[in-house]
């Protein structure tokens, strides 16, 4: 499926950004992209297997990604302010 290739490209871009970027916010963007790619793959699996479990897992991954980004960005902003 084309969706899996799109997810692979988005995941590769996120991994590249996480490894290459120097700033904390840039690395968080990379992690967010990797989470988005995993979510897309879950939804594609839900369509492929004709089950809705993948959509439930996608919602869980979205919640985890949002919490991770919020906590990570708050920590980085706090560190920048105290530095």
């Amino acid at each position, binding site marked *: 499926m084309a*969706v899996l290739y799109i997810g692979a*490209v988005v995941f590769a871009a996120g991994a590249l950004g996480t490894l290459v970027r120097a700033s904390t916010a840039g690395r968080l963007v990379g992690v967010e992209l990797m989470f*988005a790619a995993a979510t897309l793959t879950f939804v594609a699996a839900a369509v492929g297997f004709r089950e809705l479990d993948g959509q439930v897992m996608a919602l869980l991954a979205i919640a985890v990604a949002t919490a991770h980004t919020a906590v990570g960005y708050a920590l980085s902003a706090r560190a920048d302010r105290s530095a």
Partner: protein
Amino acid sequence: MTGDQVPFAIAGAVAMIGAVVAATHRDPRAAGAALLATLLALAVLYASLAAPLVAGVVVVLALFATVPVAVHANVRAVPAEARAREAPVAGAAIVVCAALLLLIGFAVAFGEVPVNVSLRSADGYDLAALAGTLAAHALPAAAAGGLAIVAALFGLHAIRRAPR
């Protein structure tokens, strides 16, 4: 290429290009905008994959989480004295948010919000019930919230015009 495949192809291209730009661009404003475009394109892909709930969640999070974080990362913080002057604005925002939360609570408590819609339903999502809820409860709640915002803005304007 059929009519359904055109938005899918466009959204896929935007998602891939936006992901690469968000991961590699040095300008944080451009990176934030590219991340937002990527998330919205992914929402289009979710909707085309018969996952409207996931698409809606992604759109809401992109607008209410990604945009504020991107703005916070790019906009320079105001000085302390200017922040003290903006205290009434923060108070008005708290009042408006509390009013909106109360409205949502009342809408859920007294309305018939289909929170028991099963994801495993063989008939799919209960879109008719969702549309009925939007027409019967969400629109009045949004109108009341809009009136609350207008009232708060008038109050803020009156506070600013009052002699000190």
